[in-house]
């Protein structure tokens, strides 16, 4: 059968582009044993700000409960787990002590208006568009390397980066 070389070239190109895309898509998902972390993101910091939140979705696909107990962001002095709540018109921030439990089959959203990771003592500003390497520590799944996308100041969710 005759194969048009141009067609073959085009096919190869689209395959390359597609696989490239899937690499990016996969890069937003991180796994350790039965723990799956999706789309970690943070926000650019205003001038002089020393804190930023870390947000993501964590799923426990296993049959045992696990617990997010800590982590590292090299740019931050400390890594804490916090919960933000509104009590009427008052914003409340509480440190979550003893880690955040992820029950079997549970999908936990870490977002600005609920549970989230808190980076404090930032040594440098976080800039929109950057990707930051970090690590999460789970009681059973152990340490997981992840990457945070830095969104804009005050962003309410991760952007869809498809390219």
């Amino acid at each position: 059968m005759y194969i048009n070389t141009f067609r073959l070239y085009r096919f190869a190109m689209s395959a390359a582009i597609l696989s490239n895309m899937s690499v990016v898509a996969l890069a937003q998902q991180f796994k350790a044993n039965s723990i799956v972390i999706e789309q970690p993101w943070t926000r650019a910091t205003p001038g002089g700000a020393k804190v930023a939140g870390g947000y993501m979705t964590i799923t426990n696909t296993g049959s045992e409960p696990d617990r997010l107990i800590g982590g590292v962001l090299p740019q931050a002095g400390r890594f804490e787990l916090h919960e933000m709540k509104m009590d009427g018109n008052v914003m409340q921030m509480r440190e979550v002590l003893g880690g955040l439990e992820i029950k079997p089959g549970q999908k936990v959203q870490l977002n600005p208006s609920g549970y989230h990771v808190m980076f404090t003592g930032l040594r440098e500003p976080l800039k929109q568009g950057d990707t930051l390497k970090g690590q999460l520590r789970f009681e059973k799944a152990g340490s997981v390397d992840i990457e945070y996308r830095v969104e804009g100041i005050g962003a309410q969710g991760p952007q869809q980066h498809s390219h």
Partner: protein
Amino acid sequence: MRKIGQNAVRIGATLVALILVGAILFGWAYLRDDGGLARAAEIGGPFALVDHHGKSVTDRDYLGKPTLVFFGFTNCPNVCPSTLLEITNQLEELGPDADRLNILFITVDPERDTPQQLALYLSSFDPRITGLSGTPENIFAAMKAYHIYAKKVPLKDGGYTMDHTATIAVMNSKGQYVDAMHYQAPSATTRAKLHRLLGLGNP
């Protein structure tokens, strides 16, 4: 028998008197709390603070223009940057009309938020937003005037964060309270309020 009757009358009269006093007190309290209007009129008042350029200012410096008053702090990871970004976007959309507004960002954390720190922080937002700091006593007085709650919450590493009221007080050009903008109110609601405040048509 007679004595018992007299006692009953006395007890009855005392009860009636107590009920009357209770009703009067209740009515007075009820009238004072006239649907929040009395309390609304109490929001705002004199303050003496320092702006992010290091200049001493008072509430009187902001009369003549409507003023949005928002309390927060620069170590605030969510509510403050989100609110200041929302205000920045609204001001940008208003364009030069926004020059007819004062926007005050008053810190509830004067210990860490010096005027210099506020200047650095506000450089990321619309330049028409003014940061105010001051002595803890003067900040507390301003918080009290605007009915703002704030509380230091210690963190286990020795640092602290702040709980605080996230509502923006909207004052008219005479410094009278007219409205509130609540945290995460839809942008369209805020836009409509700003247009009304500036006497512009519907957005």
